[in-house]
């Protein structure tokens, strides 16, 4: 490195941390947005044309700048400095957002600002200030507190999804964390996962007493509640001795891999076990020859990159440092830019299925348009979730696909409802179902 004094002017260095508990940590980021709107436009290199130009569901639906990250950064900055009063509109702007990370990777192409963390921190502030989260989120929190799942379904029915003929091991290297959705509303996903593992001769265990991952709690800013669940769930896995935590839910994957470490101020690597999504696991099994996609599925297929297993899934490392001249930080910070998302694995799996014609939608991978369901959005703003899915469906149809494949139950359900509402001729399937159908004889 060059002699610092030659090129850098003296400047007092301010301490900060990538810690969403305190919004002051993100004032720098919120105050540096230049309205290039890279958060909103599809990466210009990939810009598909005059249709499907944007990637922010909230900005696309509500249109006002306030709903895009460029507006939210200004609003957040004003709240951080006490220049703005909370009102209903402020809560709508902050919570009518899927936290899908499109803005974050867009910004990190140009400016490297921490947009996603700023948005999360703003929600934490709303909760701290006693105005957040939204009533629908509070209901979910109540459900989780009472029944350990977000739907208020009976806790003792959580394992009812288990198919006949499959018995989880008492002890195994792989622990399958099913999640609320696959346990109660999307049992077909959990059942497919179990069958896939059985076909690959992989023993797996379940948590003795699985509870919600806390995704909604974390996402809406209820950090204390989310942290308690994170600690509890991590302790359970550690106690089990599992080496691999397997999930087929994108939101659960992000929670375990990124947000649990974030909540507990540890690195992903320090969890003591590996967090993998089903697509990673199957991809390896397939390439090792342990699984073979043999049954044909003749269809034109499109794959929806779930935000939580793509641009939001870079591993977490706590950071505390100082910011000096020109905003440079020390020690050096490896920015999370979404580059280690699971983009190749699901595509490799689907392409391996005989008969599948895998088509790419105009907006794909880190540029994908969120389905609109995740992170508490569908519960509090069903219109936004519906709009987002319907908007994406137009693109799916435009691509010529007849089968839409997701890797997250929340995506699947939201798309399924939009398809039904629009009487569309598209079928939606979870990738676990597709894999299962291809390996079953």
């Amino acid at each position, binding site marked *: 490195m060059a002699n610092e004094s030659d090129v850098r002017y003296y400047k007092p260095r301010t301490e900060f941390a990538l810690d969403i508990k305190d919004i002051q940590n993100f004032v720098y980021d919120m*105050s540096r*947005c230049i309205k290039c709107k890279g958060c909103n436009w599809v990466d*210009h290199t990939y810009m598909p044309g005059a249709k499907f*130009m944007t990637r922010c569901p909230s900005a696309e639906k509500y249109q*006002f700048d306030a709903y895009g990250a460029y507006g939210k950064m*200004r609003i957040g900055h004003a709240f951080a400095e006490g220049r703005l009063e909370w*009102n209903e509109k402020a809560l709508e702007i902050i919570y009518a957002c899927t936290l899908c990370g499109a803005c974050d990777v867009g910004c990190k192409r140009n400016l*490297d600002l921490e947009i996603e963390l700023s948005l999360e921190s703003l929600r934490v502030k709303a909760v701290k200030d006693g105005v957040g989260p939204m009533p629908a989120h509070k209901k979910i929190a109540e459900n989780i507190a009472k029944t350990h799942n977000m739907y208020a379904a009976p806790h003792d029915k959580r394992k009812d999804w288990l198919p006949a003929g499959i018995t989880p091991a008492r002890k195994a290297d792989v622990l399958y964390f099913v999640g609320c959705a696959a346990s109660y509303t999307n049992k077909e996903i959990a059942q497919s996962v179990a069958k896939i593992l059985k076909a690959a001769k992989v023993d797996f265990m379940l948590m003795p007493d699985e509870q919600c991952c806390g995704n909604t709690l974390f996402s809406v800013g209820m950090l204390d509640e989310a942290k308690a669940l994170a600690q509890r769930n991590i302790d359970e896995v550690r106690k089990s001795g599992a080496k691999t935590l397997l999930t087929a839910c994108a939101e659960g994957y992000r929670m375990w891999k990124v947000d649990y470490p974030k909540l507990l101020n540890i690195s992903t690597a320090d969890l003591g076990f590996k967090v993998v999504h089903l697509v990673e696991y199957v991809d390896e099994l397939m390439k090792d020859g342990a699984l073979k996609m043999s049954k044909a599925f003749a269809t034109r297929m499109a794959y929806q990159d779930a935000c939580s297993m793509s641009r939001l899934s870079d591993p977490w490392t706590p950071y505390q440092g100082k910011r000096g001249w020109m905003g440079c930080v020390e020690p050096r910070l490896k*920015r999370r830019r979404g580059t280690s998302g699971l*983009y190749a694995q699901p595509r490799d799996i689907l392409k391996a299925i005989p008969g599948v014609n895998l088509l790419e939608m105009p907006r794909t991978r880190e540029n994908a348009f969120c389905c609109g369901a995740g992170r508490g959005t569908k519960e509090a703003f069903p219109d936004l979730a519906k709009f987002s899915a319907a908007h994406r469906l137009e693109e799916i149809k435009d691509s010529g696909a007849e089968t839409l494949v997701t890797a997250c139950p929340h995506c699947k359900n939201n798309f399924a409802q939009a398809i039904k509402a629009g009487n569309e001729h598209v079928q939606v399937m979870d990738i676990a179902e597709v894999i299962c159908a291809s390996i079953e004889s």
Partner: protein
Amino acid sequence: MEISKEIYRVLADIVGDGYISDDPVVCEGYRSGPGGYESGLGYERVMTKVPGCVIMPKYTEEVQKIVKVCYRHEIPYVPYSTGFYGPRSHPHVKGALLIDLKRMNDFVLDEKHFYVEVGPGMVYSPIQEECMKHGAYVVIGGGGAQASAIANLIGDGWSPLSHRIGLPHRRILGTEVVMPDGEILRLGSLAQGGDDPFWGESPGPDLRGLLRGYTGLRGCLGIVTRMAIKTLPFQPERLVPTGISPNTALALPEKRIKWINFVVPSKDAQVKAMKEIGHAEIAGAVTKVPLFWRAIAKAECKEEFWDLWGKENEQTVANFHIVRVLLIGYTSEEQMEYDERVLMDIMTEVGGVARRTKPSDESWIKNADSAGMWLMCGGYVSVDYVIETMTQAPEHGPAYAELKKKYTPPLMPDYGDPGWFQSFEMGHQGYSEFLVYWDQDDDTNPVDQFYVDTSKMNIKNRFYTSLLGPHQPLYLTGPKYGPNYHEFLLKVKNEFDPKWMSHPPVPLAHDVFVERAPWMHNMKDWESPKDLDKIKD
């Protein structure tokens, strides 16, 4: 005047309740902040205000109605397409109505007649993609792929691709403008009363000059609601997007399109190469590459940029001479092979050596990446653009570099970097641009001073600068250009907008800024009316 409940209702009836808001949180989302150029400078702090209300029309007729309501009730308004141009595209007076034009994003491509027709909400990269699908292309201005094409074309509108395509006013065809009082003005063949925008020139005097002149007037003479833009033929093969953000690029079909970087021995050789390439009528772009850009391209993060830049010095900057050339086989592979042979002959003559160059395009063809230029510092402004002869343009940068020393710090150390220059219109013109960078947390008052000092330097050295009008104090530049360019401009303004409702106090905003900012007072050595600052805030 405040927007009363009654007026709000009238405006809401024009666009619908979902497209208007005076909620303070929604309006805060439109704060200038550091937006675009001039991050954290005095101009932003002193001159910009949060709008009192925001409205989003969809059609020209709605814009007309909105403007008429504003004129009747004396409500100042500001047209706003993407908000990228920084403080100057935001309200400068309290309680203004911000007219957000993003919903006006219509797009029509006329493949047969080689033009596109767009609304002010349409940005460049989708236009370029659609054009390329049909064998055509446009210049994505240096403002960036994310800039509104209309806003850019009535402001700046050039890039290295201007080597072949030329300057923006040559590409503006039929255009529709809502005048400050709400009346509609149609330019070019649209003025015939039909709906054919193919021809740019008007039956009478060409009024496109009033839209932009050299670099535009930031909407103070009306709102462009529709424009046809000329496109030019391109090669037919697809440029395939590759990589994952932030490392994305277009893979180039090398037999039809390629960048080649040449190391040449001197600045004179750079200039000679550019002239000869122009005279030979080859290439799609020809530009100097400053060492600074190379450090930006290499760095993975801002800290690494400063590591790399810290290794440079005055000698390495002074001795770095790269000419970057884009070859395009517009008609055939054979044409490109011919162009490449001509290029190599020219480079042999000037002592240039071809370097290995990536077969991809990260910036200029589809992704003019100006937003990335903020990465290293968080604040920058292009203090000047000068279009001169190829001989004169390269002299502009060194003059700036000399002046810059006086203001460094807070401007970043650049080891005397003289900016960059390039060929326009096949070497008919030379273009020079000078960027300055700073940390907005520093005392930035000297940056404001430097900006005005550049005007004085241009006047003294007789550089034909573009940054007149709304970009500099009009009473400083006006008497020196024209002469009395300011009086002409103000007469036009008063005629078009007698109540000064359209983006006040532009074109006198920088004059007002100098009056209001105490640190600018010692810069003022020119005459101006005493009542300038009476323009309401």
